[in-house]
């Protein structure tokens, strides 16, 4: 956990604050934030990110396009990605799975679920 740098991508400043606070409580201290996919890609050029938590509905570049963009780049083929979104329709979840997310949480989430999914993904 000490070396893990997490990128939290969400267009809602409220959600970013809640996610970052929850991550810090769970022991993940090193967190970078971005407001959409485009901003996230820019941040990833600067910081070495080991884990991505992303929303779906965002301006400029949505979460699904962001995930597809990452997966089309060899460098990010195996980067762990967790999607945290309000979209709970099964077809959407399947679409996110196909795009390459490692796991999926529907908002509102509980801190336990967030921690559990991160740990599951890291455990492989």
């Amino acid at each position: 956990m000490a070396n893990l740098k997490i990128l939290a991508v969400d267009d809602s400043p409220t959600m970013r604050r809640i996610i970052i606070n929850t991550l810090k409580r769970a022991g993940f201290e090193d967190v970078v934030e971005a407001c959409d996919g485009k901003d996230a890609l820019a941040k990833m050029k600067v910081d070495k990110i080991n884990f991505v938590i992303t929303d779906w509905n965002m301006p400029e570049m949505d979460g699904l396009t962001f995930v597809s963009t990452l997966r089309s780049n060899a460098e990010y083929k195996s980067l762990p990605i967790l999607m945290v979104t309000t979209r709970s329709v099964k077809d959407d979840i399947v679409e996110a799975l196909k795009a390459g997310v490692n796991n999926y949480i529907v908002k509102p989430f509980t801190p336990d679920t967030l921690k559990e999914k991160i740990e599951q993904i890291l455990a492989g």
Partner: protein
Amino acid sequence: MSENMPLQAKIQAEVAALATSIADIVQKFKGLHHPLAESKEKVPVATQQLDKISEQTEAATHQMLDMVEQIQVREEKVIDGLTKMSEISELTEPNAASGLISELKELAQTNLNDAYTIMDALQFQDITAQQMNHAASLLEDIEVKLQSIMAIMAGKSVEEVKASYSKDRVFDPNADLFDKRTDQEAIDSLFSKNK
């Protein structure tokens, strides 16, 4: 109209009737213009009000987040302090104050847990903001339709009306605080099948 009427007279009568009908329709359209214009004025006000609710709820949520984060920091310090006091008390006067210290620590921990619960509950703001964006988007659709009807009535271009509405609203139309279409267990099962 009489069958013996000359053709030209029949045509003239038909044209006169048609002209009267057209004049009636024009009058009806003119009558429609006022309520349409009134609706066109009211719809954007409703949209603006929804945007204002979103903005002000977000500002209030951030104030609450500020307070909750400050409570967290203070309660963590209280728990740390009480833990140290407990250690000192054990060394100097075993059991004298340990009961009280344990009780205070428990209360501080309860406050901290409540602060976490408040913070988690503030996720409502993101979800209601999406619901309001959805409602605002529906109102904007109605506004565009009203503007288009009025543009047609005034002989203007509808495309110009549509082009002037370019606010990009991002929302999930199904965002809901309580009703999740797919529960976490089903999501987990979907992901474990596709590993």
